[in-house]
């Protein structure tokens, strides 16, 4: 789960990471009040779950409170990469001497949290990794012992020469490690970590991504989810316990299992079609999920045909067939539906579908060919 910069700042602040004062605003008036309290020139930053905010005009300087209100009124409501800005962060414009990068990711290869730090901060770390890998220090942390003091100093000495800066940075990496582990993060990042002309070391921007699997046991973190920052269809899908990702094509897909769902999209492409979505109804079958899935897929007018691809293991195919029948009773589906199902309770499923005048195929390739043809005909 992505959280906003202002929320990540709050997590870092709670761990003691030093940063400039600042606050979040939902209206120009609020932004003006924050700017007045801070005094001097401020930066107004759009809070959206996407990169490239600066380039899109979502990060602007304001010399006084009135200007902050004006800038905020232009940023609030703007659309960045398809996402509407509902909140802005107002922070003082810093007098920056240097910019560094400090990040912590959950690394699959070492199966540990791995620090990545670089004195070349403020820019895309992937770019630094590609062009100047010697400017990055990677350090895996043994989660059983945590970040050891000499590790913290190794990281800090890679960033700074002046010992006062080193000491401050060593404390900050320890605090960041705590934010990472205590909040079940998959990423925690300070970019940039800055030094100021008066010798302080501060976090200027923060990013934290929380492992979705933490949310059940951490309702406090689940509260940080901002559904207004997500695609509405994806929000509806999550509420129905479906995994749904919107794509650009016109063949709607309903599949059980993530791997098979991906392979189904790939096969649609293989036969010359274009998938409209990724949708996994999950392992345990429930007719209500199928109804929700059809409702979400048919709400997109671009969808010209729908494919069900169900391999019944734990999923009972008759539950899926019942879901299709119930959905068709509840609301009209105006596009053709092609159903492929095989496995658990297949005979019962076929009988249910036959009863409502639908055919069931047992072969995946045949079903995909048919749905691609149907979508082409309707387009």
């Amino acid at each position: 789960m992505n959280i906003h910069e202002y929320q990540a700042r709050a997590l870092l602040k709670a761990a003691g990471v030093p940063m400039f004062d600042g606050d979040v605003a939902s209206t120009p008036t609020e932004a003006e009040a924050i700017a007045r309290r801070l005094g001097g020139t401020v930066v107004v930053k759009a809070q959206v779950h996407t990169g490239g905010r600066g380039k899109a005009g979502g990060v602007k300087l304001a010399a006084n409170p009135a200007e902050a209100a004006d800038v905020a009124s232009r940023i609030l409501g703007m659309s960045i990469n398809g996402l509407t800005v509902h909140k802005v962060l107002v922070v003082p414009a810093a007098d920056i001497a240097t910019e560094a990068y400090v990040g912590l990711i959950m690394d699959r290869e070492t199966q540990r949290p791995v620090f990545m730090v670089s004195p070349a901060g403020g820019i895309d770390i992937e770019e630094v990794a590609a062009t100047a890998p010697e400017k990055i220090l990677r350090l895996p942390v043994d989660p059983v012992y945590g970040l050891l003091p000499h590790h913290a100093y190794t990281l800090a000495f890679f960033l700074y020469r002046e010992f006062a800066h080193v000491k401050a940075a060593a404390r900050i990496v320890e605090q960041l490690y705590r934010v990472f582990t205590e909040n079940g993060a998959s990423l925690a990042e300070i970019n940039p970590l800055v030094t100021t002309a008066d010798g302080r070391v501060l976090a200027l921007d923060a990013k934290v991504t929380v492992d979705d699997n933490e949310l059940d046991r951490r309702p406090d973190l689940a509260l940080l989810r901002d559904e207004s920052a997500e695609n509405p269809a994806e929000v509806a899908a999550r509420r129905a316990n479906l995994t749904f990702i919107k794509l650009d094509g016109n063949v709607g897909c309903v599949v059980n299992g993530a791997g098979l769902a991906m392979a189904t999209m790939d096969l649609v492409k293989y036969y010359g079609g274009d998938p409209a979505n990724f949708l996994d109804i999950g392992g345990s079958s429930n007719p209500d999920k199928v109804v929700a899935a059809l409702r979400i897929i048919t709400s997109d007018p671009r969808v010209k045909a729908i494919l069900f691809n169900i391999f019944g293991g734990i999923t009972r195919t008759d539950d899926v067939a019942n879901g299709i029948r119930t959905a068709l009773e509840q609301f009209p589906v105006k596009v053709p539906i092609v159903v492929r199902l095989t496995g658990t309770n297949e005979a019962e499923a076929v009988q249910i579908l036959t009863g409502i005048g639908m055919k069931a195929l047992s072969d995946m390739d045949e079903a995909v060919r048919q749905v691609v043809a149907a979508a082409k005909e309707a387009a």
Partner: protein
Amino acid sequence: MSIFADRATRLVVQGITGRDGSFHTRQMVEYGTNVVAGVTPGKGGLRFDDKVPVYNTVAEAVRETGANASVIYVPPVGAAGAMYEAADAGVRLIVCITEGVPVMDMTRVLPFVRARGARLIGPNCPGLITPGEAKVGIIPGNICAPGRVGIVSRSGTLTYEIVNHLTRAGIGQSTCVGIGGDPLIGTNFIDVLRAFQDDPDTDVIVLMGEIGGTDEQMAAEFVRQSVTKPVIGFIAGQTAPKGRRMGHAGAIISGSSGTAEEKIAAFEGAGFGIMKRPLDVVELVKARL
């Protein structure tokens, strides 16, 4: 022969009285798996379906029944605890079916299990099956047949699709292993490839990967250096967008790494037969048996 599980497997089911645990225990017993015990704290002394003895702890189950393998069907919050307990009790094979285990938990579980010499498969996996001998997990037994093709995969139903194609074409399997779709897992492709390479009853290996991470690339490198048996590969997610988690927690293209293209290129470089679609498995395997 086979890998990881066979007739000698003596299985304990952790979470045997739960909804999923009880359903799948019946399926495993019906398949002929030697389920010797179940564990549900507080239900010790019961008999599951009047047959399988239930214990309060895994240690007790191991002591009383000689269980040497465990399968875990407990909810995500309890899954890490169940894995620690199984490893501490001296079980050699631990299969964790549970989906949704916090990754932070796995950073501590994995070294713990390794230090005790156990093999962990999963979490978030369908388990494994050695057709005709033992089923540990949730792979439907009726789609499998005994034979000489080893299967390893990061997914569940996609594996069933491929196995089904093979069985219907009269091609059986030695063992099918689902290693799981999470970013941090106990057994990776290389572990399974090594076991299949050493298994005299496996002639051809089918490997099903997906977008995200570098496990497939490392597997390809391992095959190039250390596997003499023919390998056939598939990558799911060729049409997946970047930066989105495709259902499996581990199936995500981060930045520009973990794409289907780079994985397929790695497979080609290691001489794999490449499946463009699931159905291709039949012809590719036939040509190599």
